[in-house]
C-alpha cells in the first residue's frame, strides 16, 4: 500500500498545491494503483513547496519538492507505477534543515491530515486530556504546568502556570471564567500560529480543554485573524469533530466537566493582539486597550476572570501532560524551557518554519538550518520580535536565543518572526518600515504613541529622503525613550525598539544618510541613482520599452543611458534587464 501526501497549508496552496493534488486525483486509480491520496499541513520547508511525500509500506518515504502539475505525471508513472525514485526532485536540504531542530510542537504538522481527527487520535492525541480528566485534580494540572517552566509564546514570556493559577483563584460571583486563545498573530513576518491551526488544530484545542479544566472555565474562545481563512476553516472542522467524539461539550469523556469553544474572527488590527484590546473586540467593541491596574485574569472578558494564552502556548500543554514537566524542563535554558517556533524569512536560503530548543545560537539557525544567505551576499542583521523587537547585528550571531538574552540585546522574542537581512538591506529603511506600520496600527488612544510615532516617522522619512539634519539621531532617541516610558499599552511601550536598536548597532548608516546623503545599502530611493553599465549593456532596448518615464534612450545594439532628471527610480529597468547591466549606487 502506498500513500501520496500533498502539503496543503497556505504556503503549499500559494505554490500551487491544490493543482498538484487535483492532478494526482485525476491520474491515480485508488484500487489499481493501491495508493491513497492524502493532504497535510505545513512541513516547514516552505522554500520547496509544493511538497509531496510518498510513503510506501508505511515506512519508506520520499519527499519531492517544487512539484508542479506537470511533474505529477512523471511521479505517477515512474515512481508509483514503476517503482523508481526520481532522484533529482528529492528535497536534498531535508537532512540539514531538520538536523538541529527539535520538532515537538510541530511534530505532527505536515504529517497528519488536519481535517481528520482519526489521524490525531492515532498519533496519541487527546491522551493527555484523558489522563487529566481521569487522574488529575485541577490544582495538580496547574502545578505540573508551573513546574515545566512553560512561558507564554505570544511575546511577553509570562509563566503560564502562574497565570492559570491567578485566574483560577480570582473571585467570580457566579463562577464564570473564560479561556481564550490568541490567534491574532499581528507580527507581519510571523506565521507559526496560523500553521499550527491549519496543520494541527486539535493540539491547540486539547491544550485549551486541559487549561479550562485546570482553571475552572466552561467557555473558551479562539480569536483568529480574518485574513486566515484556512485556519478558521480547519479549526471549525476540528471543533465539530471533537464535539462529535464527546471531547467538547457537556460531560466531556463522561466526566462532570463541560466546556466548549467558539471561534471569533478578528477584524485585522495589530493592537487586537494586546490582551485588553482583544477582549474589547470580542465584546463587539473597538479594539482599544485599557490600563491594566486590574489584570484580565481577574476582570477580563465581560468583567469575568479570563485567561489568555497564545496558540503555541496552548499547543505545548498536551506535551507537558503526556511526557511530564521534568522532560519538558530538560529542554532549553535556565529560565526559558522547551522549544520555540520561528518563521525564518527574508534573505535566507531555506525559508520556512523551524522549531528549535531554547538556547540554540542565531548562527546555528541561520547558517545550519537556514543554509545561509542567498546569492553570496553578506549577512548583516536579523530582526526578531516583529514591530516590538529590534535588529541584532552580525557580531552578536553567537547569541543563544531565549527570552532573556534577546531582551538584553535590545530586541525580544515576540511571537517568533525572524527576518534575516543581508548587506542590501538598509537599516534606516527597516526602522522606517516598522514605525510606519505602528503609526497605522496605533489605536490612537494615548498621546505619546499617537503623536510621538508620527513625529518619529517624519524624522525617519526625512533621513531616508536625504533631508536629515544634525541632531536628528539624538532627537529620535529622546522621543523613543519618552514614548517607551509614557505610553498606555505595550504597543507604544515597545514601538521605539526597532529605531533604538538600529541606532544602537548601525549608527554609521544613519550618519551616512544624514551627513553624506548616501544610502550605503542602495535602498532609499531619494539617495540612489540608477545607471547602465556600458560594458554589460548590449542594447536590447527592453529597459527603454518598460520605463514608465521614457527616461532611457539609446540606439539598438548600443549601450543605453538613463536621464537622471526624469528618472523616478522605480527600478523597472533593473527588474527587466537580463544582463544585470543596471547598477544602483
Amino acid at each position: 500500500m502506498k500513500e501520496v501526501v500533498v502539503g496543503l497549508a497556505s504556503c503549499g496552496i500559494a505554490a500551487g498545491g491544490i493543482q498538484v493534488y487535483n492532478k494526482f486525483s485525476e491520474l491515480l486509480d485508488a484500487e489499481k494503483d493501491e495508493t491513497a491520496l492524502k493532504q497535510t499541513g505545513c512541513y516547514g520547508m516552505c522554500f520547496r513547496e509544493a511538497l509531496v511525500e510518498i510513503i510506501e509500506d508505511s515506512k519508506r518515504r520520499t519527499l519531492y519538492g517544487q512539484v508542479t502539475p506537470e511533474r505529477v505525471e512523471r511521479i505517477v508513472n515512474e515512481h508509483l507505477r514503476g517503482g523508481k525514485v526520481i532522484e533529482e526532485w528529492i528535497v536534498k536540504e531535508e537532512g540539514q534543515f531538520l538536523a538541529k531542530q527539535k520538532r515537538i510542537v510541530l511534530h505532527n504538522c505536515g504529517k497528519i491530515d488536519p481535517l481528520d481527527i482519526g489521524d490525531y487520535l492515532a498519533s496519541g492525541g487527546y491522551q493527555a486530556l484523558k489522563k487529566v480528566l481521569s487522574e488529575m485534580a485541577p490544582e495538580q494540572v496547574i502545578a505540573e504546568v508551573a513546574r515545566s517552566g512553560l512561558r507564554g509564546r505570544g511575546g511577553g514570556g509570562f509563566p503560564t502556570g502562574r497565570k492559570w493559577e491567578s485566574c483560577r483563584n480570582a473571585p467570580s460571583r457566579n463562577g464564570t471564567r473564560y479561556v481564550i486563545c490568541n490567534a491574532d498573530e499581528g507580527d507581519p513576518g510571523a506565521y507559526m500560529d496560523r500553521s499550527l491551526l491549519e496543520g494541527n488544530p486539535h493540539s491547540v484545542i486539547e491544550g485549551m480543554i486541559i487549561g479550562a479544566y485546570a482553571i475552572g472555565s466552561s467557555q473558551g474562545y479562539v480569536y483568529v485573524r480574518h485574513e486566515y481563512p484556512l485556519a478558521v476553516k480547519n479549526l471549525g472542522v476540528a471543533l465539530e469533530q471533537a464535539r462529535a467524539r464527546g471531547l467538547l461539550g457537556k460531560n466531556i469523556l463522561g466526566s462532570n466537566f463541560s466546556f466548549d469553544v467558539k471561534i471569533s474572527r478578528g477584524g485585522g488590527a495589530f493592537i487586537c493582539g494586546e490582551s485588553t484590546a482583544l477582549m474589547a473586540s470580542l465584546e463587539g467593541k473597538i479594539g482599544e486597550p485599557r490600563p491594566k491596574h486590574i489584570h484580565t485574569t481577574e476582570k477580563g472578558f465581560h468583567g469575568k476572570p479570563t485567561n489568555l494564552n497564545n496558540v503555541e502556548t496552548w499547543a505545548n500543554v498536551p506535551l507537558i501532560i503526556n511526557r511530564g514537566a521534568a522532560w519538558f524542563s530538560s529542554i532549553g535554558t535556565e529560565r526559558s524551557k522547551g522549544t520555540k517556533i520561528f518563521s525564518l524569512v527574508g534573505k535566507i536560503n531555506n525559508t520556512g518554519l523551524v522549531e528549535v530548543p531554547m538556547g540554540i545560537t542565531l548562527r546555528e539557525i541561520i547558517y545550519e538550518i537556514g543554509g545561509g544567505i542567498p546569492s553570496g551576499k553578506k549577512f548583516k542583521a536579523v530582526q526578531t520580535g516583529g514591530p516590538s523587537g529590534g535588529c541584532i547585528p552580525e557580531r552578536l550571531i553567537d547569541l543563544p536565543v531565549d527570552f532573556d538574552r534577546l531582551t538584553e540585546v535590545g530586541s525580544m522574542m515576540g511571537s517568533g518572526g525572524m527576518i534575516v537581512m543581508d548587506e542590501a538591506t538598509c537599516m534606516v529603511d527597516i526602522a522606517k518600515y516598522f514605525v510606519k506600520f505602528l503609526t497605522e496600527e496605533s489605536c490612537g488612544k494615548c498621546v505619546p504613541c499617537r503623536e510621538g510615532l508620527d513625529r518619529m516617522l517624519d524624522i525617519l522619512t526625512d533621513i531616508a529622503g536625504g533631508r536629515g539634519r544634525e541632531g536628528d539621531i539624538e532627537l529620535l532617541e529622546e522621543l523613543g525613550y519618552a514614548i517607551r516610558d509614557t505610553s498606555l499599552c505595550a504597543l507604544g511601550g515597545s514601538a521605539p525598539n526597532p529605531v533604538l536598536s538600529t541606532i544602537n548597532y548601525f549608527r554609521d548608516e544613519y550618519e551616512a544618510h544624514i551627513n553624506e546623503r548616501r544610502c550605503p545599502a542602495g535602498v532609499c530611493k531619494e539617495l540612489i541613482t540608477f545607471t547602465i553599465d556600458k560594458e554589460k549593456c548590449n542594447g536590447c532596448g527592453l529597459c527603454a520599452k518598460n520605463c514608465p518615464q521614457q527616461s532611457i534612450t539609446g540606439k539598438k545594439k548600443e549601450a543605453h543611458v538613463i536621464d537622471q532628471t526624469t528618472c523616478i527610480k522605480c527600478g523597472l529597468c533593473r527588474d527587466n534587464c537580463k544582463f544585470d547591466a543596471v547598477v544602483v549606487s
Partner: protein
Amino acid sequence: MGAVRIAKSDHDQIEYVIGSNGHSADALISILQDIQAELHYLPEEALRHVAKRLNLPLIQVYGVATFFKAFSLKPKGRHQCTVCMGTACHVRGAGRVLEELERKLNIKAGNTTDDMEYSLDTVNCVGACALGPMVIIDGEYLGIMNAAKVKNVLKAHGAKAARSGQRKG
C-alpha cells in the same frame, strides 16, 4: 455616500446574517464580516440596520466598522488585487511592486479604479514568505513578484488599465 440604497435581496441577506449570529452584540464584528463578505463593503444602510436590530448605538457600529481594516465603507471593484507588505516581502522589494501596481492602475493602495474594475489593497504576511514578494489577485497567489512582472500579470487578468492608464506623470 448614504445615497446608495441596498437591494431587497441584500436586505434579506443582512437579516439572515444577524439571525445566524444570534442577534448578539458580542457578534457585531462577525456580523459585519459576514455582510462584508456578501456585499464586499458595508453600506450605510446596512450599518443602520445592524445598529437597530442589535439595539446598539450607531456610533458603536460605525466605530467598529471604521476601526478594523477588514471593513470597507466604499464599494469594492470587480477584481481584488492585494499586495503583501509583510516584513519578509518588504525586504525583498514589495514596496516597488506596489508602486508599479499603483502606477499601472492609476490609483493609490486602498482605492478602487473609477470603472470599478480593480481594488488595490495591502495586507501583512499571507504566510507564503518563501515566495515573497507576494501578490494575490482574485484569490490567485502570485509569488516571487517584481515590478517588471506586474504588466503581464495585469494583462493576464484582463486589465484594461495595463493598456490605457500607463503613461502618466
